[in-house]
């Protein structure tokens, strides 16, 4: 039997290898196809495409900058709002709550993840946008109105509301992943920390330090979802490609532009420009994810070093 076992292992290895290779091939294939289809636009507009500020499809004038700006800023808003909340929920569920409480809350969070994004969008138009216009936005302008990001006309539709709804949308996935990561930290570590006289807060810090890379993964996952979100964002961001300091002004993101226009793009150069936008989205996602990972690794390394010192 040992012979067949060795052969089986070989085949098994081959299958796994081909699975990994296929993923690589798919990504390379997507990239190649996109570059090929975007070529007319790349050749015609060059680097001006990335720095242009006007998007006028009728005049074949395409500038990606406001969309890149909108994509990055709205995703940052979403992550900044969602991550602390997700961490709080996950830590509570794993470290503090009794199973009686933790189970229903976990269930509710998973339920939140199953809501289609168009429902989030509708809810955002009819509930969140008026709430921002009449309450939250007014509050922010009253107390933090000296900050340029909270100045300008308050319509309820704009970058801020889009970021807010995206935060809600990524909350379940970030929470669920962080919870699972925390659960894999060995119980012995908590017991050891407690045995050394650590408080609950200090114990949690030890646990978080050990789960850091997993948490980083969760955040990157959430960020990726935020960057790629289409429907809900289109419905509340105002779809107006502009770069303004105020978060209450309308803006637009790459994903939302593609969702709204791809089906109807009949012109060849227009279609090519939209595909180049897809390529830009690819690039933005890659860079943002890489930066996020570096940032988180840097922070956790420093935390670990200070602890050791």
């Amino acid at each position, binding site marked *: 039997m040992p012979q067949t076992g060795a*052969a*089986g*292992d070989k*085949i*098994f290895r*081959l*299958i796994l290898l*081909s699975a990994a290779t296929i993923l690589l091939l798919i990504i390379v294939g997507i990239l190649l196809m996109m570059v090929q289809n975007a070529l007319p636009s790349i050749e015609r507009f060059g680097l001006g495409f990335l720095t242009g*500020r*006007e998007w*006028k*499809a*009728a*005049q074949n*004038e395409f500038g990606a900058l406001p969309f890149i700006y909108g994509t990055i800023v709205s995703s940052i808003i979403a992550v900044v709002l969602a991550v602390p909340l997700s961490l709080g929920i996950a830590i509570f569920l794993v470290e503090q709550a009794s199973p009686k409480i933790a189970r229903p809350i976990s269930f509710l969070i998973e339920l939140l993840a199953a809501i289609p994004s168009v429902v989030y969008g*509708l809810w955002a*138009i*009819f509930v969140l*946008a*008026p709430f921002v*216009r009449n309450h939250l936005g007014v509050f922010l302008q009253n107390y933090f109105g000296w900050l340029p990001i909270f100045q300008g*006309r308050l*319509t*309820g*539709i*704009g970058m801020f509301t889009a970021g807010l709804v995206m935060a809600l949308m990524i909350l379940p996935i970030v929470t669920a992943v962080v919870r699972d990561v925390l659960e894999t930290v060995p119980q012995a570590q908590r017991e050891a920390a407690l045995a050394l006289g650590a408080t609950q807060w200090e114990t949690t810090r030890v646990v978080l330090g050990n789960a850091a890379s997993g948490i980083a993964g969760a955040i990157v996952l959430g960020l990726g979802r935020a960057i790629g979100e289409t429907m809900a964002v*289109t*419905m509340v961001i*105002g*779809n*107006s*490609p*502009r770069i303004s300091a105020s978060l209450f002004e*309308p803006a*637009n993101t790459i994903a939302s532009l593609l*969702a*709204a*226009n791809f*089906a*109807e*793009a*009949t012109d060849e150069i227009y279609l090519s420009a939209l595909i180049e936008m897809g390529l830009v989205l690819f690039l933005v996602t890659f860079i943002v994810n890489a930066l996020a990972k570096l940032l988180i690794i840097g922070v956790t390394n420093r935390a670990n070093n200070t602890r050791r010192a």
Partner: protein
Amino acid sequence: MPIKFLTIKVSPAAFFFCFVLLFASCSGEPFGRNRAAATDSAGTINLQGSGASFPKPIYEKWASEFGKIEPKIRVDYQASGSGAGQKAVLAKTSDFGASDDPMSDEDLRSAGAEILHIPTVLGAVVLTYNLPEIKKPLKLSAETIAEIYLGSIRKWNDERLARDNPELNLPNADILPIYRADSSGTSAVFTDFLAKTVPVWREKVGTNKQPSWITGIGMGARGNDGVMGQVKQTPNSIGYVELTYAEANNVPMAHIKNKSGDFIEPSLETVTAAAENSAAQMPEDLRFQIADTGGANAYPLASYTYILVYKNQPDAVKGKALADFLWWATHDGERFIRNLHYAPLPRDVVRKVEAKINSMTTADRLVLRPQKTEEK
């Protein structure tokens, strides 16, 4: 640590076999029926249409009602947008396309074969607004609409608006214009009306399914429902939507000044009047935008919506079914139109449509033999 999954006895060879099978099923011929065939095994003729979202309710109603009369013909309509409808016809991926605005000369030339424009129903674009204090209808002209969307009228109590609305006490509030962010036949009709009547608009924005809006003025929403939702939710906003949507949502609609200087309320009657008044100007190929017609009771922002078909049908069976469907829709199908808030074609236009349907051919022979005439 043994993982439970691996302890289940799966022979690696079987696993590999599954993998191979998966790939084989991906690369092989699809199991489904062949798309190009005119009929399937049950003898049903499938007509696939795609395009404008505006006429979707009536096309679906027609498809189901026609199916009751001709059970062998099955019409499917996919609302993918006017631009996609034109593209589908050019790429021959649908049996018929649908579009709110006529195809351009350039696109028609690139088709390589003659494409017929068959007007089916009429719609209208209305301006809806959110001014809670204003109870009587707002009156707008092409000039004031253009100035609002160009950003030169920024407040509701601007004297240019007050002049047309002496009886209204318009608030001292910023106007928020809302437009369609996606490519849309509604935008084409709206901008065509403004471009025909306001020179500055023609210069700065022009006519387009996806116009170049002035950066920093107003905001975009996706779809008629998106614009509707945002106007409903945002005080002091104004937006343009299809009449059908505005009626279904029971929102205020502005009266628009037409060529003879009257402010006209949008309704099926005023849209029909606009179509009748302009029917004589319709060109031979039926590609026509009504925008800005005159006459008492004629609403200026009315428009036709079209079904696009090749004059020479590649398949005799399908061609006959398509001609029958189009004939039925523009004749007996008319009685379903009003309930869905569309306006029917004027008599003169129906005559022109009849000639077009009768002219359809397949392999150099007429599709409809004998030729149809109106049974009245």
